[in-house]
């Protein structure tokens, strides 16, 4: 039997499915929570590090692992400073309630915006370094040698003069009693031995044996399983339902309405809950929302392209005057559709609520937001709630939201003491997302007689994520995040081109379809708009798109584009019928560029042969994982470019499952070659920025191959045949 328990004190017990089968058959009683009786007695060195007498190193990870490799990278950073034996490293999650109870000693749990490593590297390395200094101080006392004469390496402390050694495990208990040092000096990255290396992930083996437990696999004693159907029109209400019709169906335990907009069937199994829910008559109140369709949304956005009022995100000089006086004017309108995250594991959460306690088990990108949702839904104070994080079967921004946590807690509240696992069907998941927002963009550029870009006007029209999800973060009504990748300055997502006269603004138009953070977020569409239009401008100027960009780009942006172009052999002869397209962007603190090599056959068949992608993320913590994130970014970004589109009819999302929402598979996956060009002077993110160059690099290559400029995604709607 596997009981996952950590070295932290208060902890619910997690029991894997396979283990419970055995446990039940043997009649084991598994307590929900024990605490003191089972808590391990090994005292932590600090919030980040626990070392056991057998030298096992437990590193605490606050961010969520969802495939991006952050837990391995963060462990590498701690272990590097700790000077421990990497083969002894394991990890565990502290819980959000423990973070709150300890004055947020683990700081931010939120895992989005490619922030895991770039925003926590300083304090997790300090945690490792402080623990190392405490171990050395304890060893000094035990070896009766001055601490300054001791060296620590590979979990062993050595006094060179006497030849005496002691292991971390032998002094950890004494070290844990010591005061932490006031300050520590971190290692120069050039001296790294564990960080910076392509070490293997710490979470692989259980993922190839079926042992890895995700939230959807959880089994708790006495647990029931629920499934939900919310109003098919987001924002609509539940009018009525006829529970009597299904209450006698196999396994059904309860039928409940929650939040006035959804109905839930609780049963002994998911399959019985799902079968009963499918037979449940429901009536919805969708009001005026039923009149909304993709066509009406397009009309709304089209009007925004020419509206007088808009929020200005980036302004230099006088773009209008420059374009009016230009020798040549270029204009184009682009659009970018709603898209779905499609985590492979559908949304789910397990909750148990009693009069004085609310516990939640789930995959979440934001443990503290899930904790807040549990508190709000249960009506219990945060101190009486906790969230036990599970590994995520995909996140991509979707699991930063806590709507599914709230629902599970609301249902569990109806059945006090009974653990309820709420699983969304794929159909529910497809139709109740917070989608990649929809926007359109009108771009106008002016070229002088020599083909220099003298003015550029960019009008974005469409949906704001912050206005829907975090209205408190709007700045005088403006959503600054809309300008990701086009921002005037900053270390997050700044615009890389020096344009003498520039105006980028946003006419906010918010349809009722809820938008959300979708891996790469607003950089994705902004890179399509800007990078495809740069090619259009280069064409109008009669210049090569690389040369045209290099004249305008600031040094860091230019360097990464050149690195990609050089590696791809841009400008050199390609196989007959193959064409290159390129794109660059800064996002999530990093500079990235991609070169796509494509061909389009006479009958219009697109083949993406190869991608060459360059990344300057400042510091490289695990090059093997960065390569996987970069290649994965093309799988994700090209899926969206080829197929990703959510449409709306009668107020509801039309796509319901993978038969109506296709994704890229292995046969369409191009070979991705990754070039890492870190400059060592900043910390940038990796999980997201590269997605943004996937679509524009391919669209630019298609334009070279066919002479046709695709300005609206997804590509599946376009006939690429020459002359078509």
């Amino acid at each position, binding site marked *: 039997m596997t009981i996952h328990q950590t070295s932290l004190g208060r902890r619910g017990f997690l029991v*894997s*499915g*396979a283990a*419970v*089968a055995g446990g039940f058959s043997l009649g084991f009683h598994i307590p929900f929570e024990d605490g003191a009786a089972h808590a391990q007695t090994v005292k932590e060195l600090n919030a980040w590090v626990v070392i056991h007498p057998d030298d096992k190193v437990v590193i605490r990870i606050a961010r969520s692992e*969802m*495939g*991006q*490799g952050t837990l391995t990278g963060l462990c590498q950073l701690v272990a590097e400073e700790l000077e421990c034996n990497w083969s002894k490293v394991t990890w565990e999650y502290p819980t959000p309630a423990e973070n709150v109870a300890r004055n947020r000693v683990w700081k931010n749990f939120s895992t989005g915006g490619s922030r895991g490593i770039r925003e926590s590297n300083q304090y997790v390395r300090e945690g490792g370094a402080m623990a190392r200094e405490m171990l050395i101080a304890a060893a000094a006392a035990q070896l009766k040698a001055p601490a300054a004469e001791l060296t620590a390496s590979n979990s062993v402390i050595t006094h060179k003069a006497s030849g005496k050694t002691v292991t971390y495990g032998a002094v950890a208990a004494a070290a844990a009693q010591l005061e932490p040092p006031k300050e520590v000096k971190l290692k120069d990255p050039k001296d790294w031995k564990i960080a910076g290396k392509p070490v*293997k*992930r710490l*979470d*692989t*083996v259980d*993922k*190839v*044996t*079926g*042992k*890895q*437990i*995700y939230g*959807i*696999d959880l*089994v708790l004693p006495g647990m029931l*399983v629920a499934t939900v159907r919310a109003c098919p029109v987001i924002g609509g209400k539940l009018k009525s339902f006829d529970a009597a019709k299904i209450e006698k169906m*196999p396994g059904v335990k309860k039928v409940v309405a929650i939040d006035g907009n959804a109905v839930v069937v609780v049963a002994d*199994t*998911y*399959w019985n809950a799902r079968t009963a829910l499918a037979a449940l008559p429901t009536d919805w109140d969708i009001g005026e929302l039923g009149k909304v369709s993709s066509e009406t949304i397009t009309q709304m956005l089209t009007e925004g392209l020419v509206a007088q009022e808009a929020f200005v995100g980036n302004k230099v000089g006088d773009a209008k005057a420059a374009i009016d006086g230009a020798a040549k004017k270029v204009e184009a309108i682009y659009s970018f559709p709603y898209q779905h995250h*499609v*985590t*492979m*594991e559908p949304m789910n959460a397990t909750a148990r609520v009693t009069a004085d306690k609310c516990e939640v088990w789930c995959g979440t990108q934001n443990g503290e937001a899930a904790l807040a949702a549990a508190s709000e839904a249960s009506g219990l104070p945060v101190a009486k709630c906790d969230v036990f994080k599970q*590994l*995520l*079967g*995909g*996140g*991509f921004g979707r699991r930063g939201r806590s709507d599914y946590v709230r629902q599970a807690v609301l249902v569990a509240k109806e059945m006090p003491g009974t653990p309820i696992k709420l699983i969304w*069907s*794929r159909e529910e998941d497809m139709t109740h997302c917070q989608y990649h927002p929809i926007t359109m963009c009108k771009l106008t550029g002016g070229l002088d007689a020599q083909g220099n870009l003298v003015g550029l006007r960019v009008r974005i029209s469409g949906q704001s994520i912050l206005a829907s999800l975090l209205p408190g973060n709007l700045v005088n009504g403006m959503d600054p995040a809309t300008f990701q990748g086009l921002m005037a300055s900053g270390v997050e997502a700044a615009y890389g081109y020096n344009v003498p006269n520039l105006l980028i603004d946003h006419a906010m138009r918010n349809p009722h379809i809820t938008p959300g953070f979708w891996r790469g977020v607003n950089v994705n569409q902004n890179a399509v708009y800007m990078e495809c239009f740069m090619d259009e401008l280069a064409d109008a100027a009669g210049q090569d798109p690389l040369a045209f960009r290099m004249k305008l780009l600031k040094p860091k942006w230019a360097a990464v584009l050149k690195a990609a172009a050089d590696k791809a052999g841009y400008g050199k002869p390609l196989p007959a019928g193959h064409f290159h397209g390129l794109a660059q962007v800064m996002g999530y603190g990093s500079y990235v560029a991609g070169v796509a090599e494509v061909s389009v056959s006479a009958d219009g068949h697109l083949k993406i042969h190869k991608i060459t992608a360059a990344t300057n993320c400042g510091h490289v913590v695990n090059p*093997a994982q960065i390569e*996987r994130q970069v*290649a*994965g*970014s*093309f*799988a*994700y970004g090209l*899926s969206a470019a080829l197929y990703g589109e959510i449409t709306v009819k009668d107020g509801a999302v039309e796509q319901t*499952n*993978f*038969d109506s929402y296709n994704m890229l*598979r*292995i*046969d369409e*996956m191009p*070979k*991705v070659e990754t070039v890492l060009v870190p400059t060592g002077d900043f910390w940038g993110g990796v999980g997201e920025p590269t997605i943004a160059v996937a679509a524009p690099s391919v669209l630019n290559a298609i334009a070279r191959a066919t002479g046709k400029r695709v300005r609206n995604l997804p590509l599946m709607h376009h006939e690429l045949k020459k002359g078509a």
Partner: protein
Amino acid sequence: MAVLNVNGKALNHNADPRTPLLWVLREQLKLTGTKYGCGIAQCGACTVLIDGVATRSCQVPANSVGNRKVTTIEGLAANGQLNKIQAAWVAVDVPQCGYCQSGMVMAATALLAAKPKPTDADIDAAMTNICRCGTYQQVREAIHAAAKA
């Protein structure tokens, strides 16, 4: 009470006979390594072997299986030793989130049984599973590595 032959054992369950094999495996037999992704045989996360044939268990009624042999991801390792495909997956460090990987490994197992030295085209044809993290490059590498092992 119905019986299924899973991973070499005769296992009893009480589910409605038309329940998809996926949910009998997951909820009755507690073999949760086989995953629910779409329920309509598109994504392959639920792939198991039925008499050696890679099959999407979400669309197979349990009562249609009869006495055919079902192999799930939990049945691949023998005596705690990973089989050569799992070992290649670990050596190449394939999984990211890992949710689709049970199905990937099962599909690769069937492929290598049928074609011990698959070409890239064979891999393209056989590996129709969806991975959203984008492990495809590593999946291909691991299949070739397992073929050489």
